């Protein structure tokens, strides 16, 4: 049943122009960053050769692209999650799903899964971009892998939070602004966390992503991401269930 919902979400996403425009936009921005870094790399290459243990193309070109990708996904996730529940509620179509013999968690997980499949497409496009560097050099596959895992996990966090905000309202625009506000807040927290070496940095999603982006798989970060995802998915299911009890 989760698969039925996920398929429906993907179909609805790709029949609207939104998904295509976003995919094109993401690719445009990331390719730009990619080419910019490539240019910079070619310029400093002679100097790099004089260093004993120089950073490779993966560190200089691909890591910044993944870092940028995380920020771009932070910006666009609210646009994708806003419809998921808020629009269903506004168009009275949520009734169809609730009256069908499926559970609330199937509905929420199906929607989450549909969105994650979309993000997997985005990530695989970035991977294709990275692999194109094989034409002129060697890649650090370990770093590429950790960056990919990190991007996948952080986008899942964005999606879970977005779905939860979408479950709170019947106005897609409010859902988008709410989710964007909170995600931006989490980003700013990262900037503060850079200055002070305090507890703040433990809550910043992008700070945790930075470890992955440097090639580290920190179990603490993995746990934080997974807890974040599970918390917001459970909150969404509870929110929808609660609506039946006392709206």
């Amino acid at each position, binding site marked *: *049943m989760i698969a*039925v919902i996920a398929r*429906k979400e993907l*179909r*609805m996403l790709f*029949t*609207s122009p939104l998904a295509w425009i976003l995919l094109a936009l993401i690719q445009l921005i990331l390719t730009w960053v990619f080419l910019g870094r490539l240019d910079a790399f070619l310029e400093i290459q002679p100097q790099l050769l004089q260093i004993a243990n120089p950073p490779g193309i993966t560190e200089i070109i691909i890591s910044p692209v993944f870092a940028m990708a995380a920020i771009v996904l932070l910006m666009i996730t609210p646009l994708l999650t806003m419809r998921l529940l808020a629009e269903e509620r506004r*168009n*009275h*179509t*949520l*009734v*169809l*799903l*609730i*009256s*069908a*013999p*499926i*559970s609330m968690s199937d509905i929420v997980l199906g929607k989450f899964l549909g969105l994650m499949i979309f993000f997997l497409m985005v990530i695989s496009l970035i991977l294709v971009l990275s692999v194109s560097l094989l034409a002129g050099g060697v890649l650090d596959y370990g770093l590429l892998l950790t960056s990919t895992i990190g991007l996948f996990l952080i986008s899942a966090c964005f999606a879970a939070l977005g779905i939860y905000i979408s479950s709170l309202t019947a106005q897609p625009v409010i859902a988008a602004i709410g989710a964007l506000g909170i995600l931006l807040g989490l980003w700013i927290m990262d900037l503060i966390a850079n200055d002070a070496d305090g507890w703040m940095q433990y809550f910043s999603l992008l700070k945790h992503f930075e470890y992955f982006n440097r090639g580290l798989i920190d179990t603490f970060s993995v746990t934080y991401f997974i807890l974040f995802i599970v918390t917001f998915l459970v909150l969404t299911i509870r929110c929808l269930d609660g609506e*039946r*009890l006392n*709206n």
Partner: protein
Amino acid sequence: MSEQTIALTLSAQNLCRNYGDHVAVHNVSIQLKRGEVLGLLGPNGAGKTTTMRMLTGNLAPSAGSIRICGFDLFDNPYNAKSHLGYLPETPPLYQDMTVNEYLHLVARLHRIESRAIPTALEETKQRCGLNDRGSHLIHTLSKGFQQRVGIAQAIIHSPDIIILDEPTVGLDPNQIREIRLLIRELGATSSVILSTHILSEVDSVCDRVQIMHQGCMVFDEALADLRLKGINLETIFTQLTFQNRGNMDRVEAA
């Protein structure tokens, strides 16, 4: 006793529902036999829609129990809901899908086997007069056709109980007649609950009528009995639900 429970497809006991301090539905019981069409009447705000939302699991009752084909709606929601078809007041349609895509999705949501889906789809479109609309986008259809898609959605899995909330609102007289015929046809195999404001509709389609007023069930009688007694449905309805006696006398005098 056991024979009676088998014959009953839906049995709701003492349903109550409060919104904060406001009592929307109070102590409502509904029992439905197989092959029976029940008309649920009542003025606006009498609690018809709330009752129907409770019967379909969209709203949890504050008190009371609901059994559907022997399954408790709260202990065993999946089995219970698979016997239900529900058309809410606003048909739950995805405007950007075609009729075929939409009905296909509904069939899958109701766990119809993949092999059986094309047949179910064709049959349902046939019954609802949607044959040549399969590839139309839903938002391009007229209100009457959208309403038919809504009904198609409620009957595609051949449920034992079909709950229709004001299915003929906003339709032209021809469409109303067609929908009534369809409801009669559905009533031959399933139990149907139908809420409406139109008294003549109840007269022409229903076997039994229940009237709600201010959240309570105030009247429950088979239409055949009413006819035997020579009681007019409209007189009963006005007597039971007209708020202001003074007004009513004036209406009667007119």
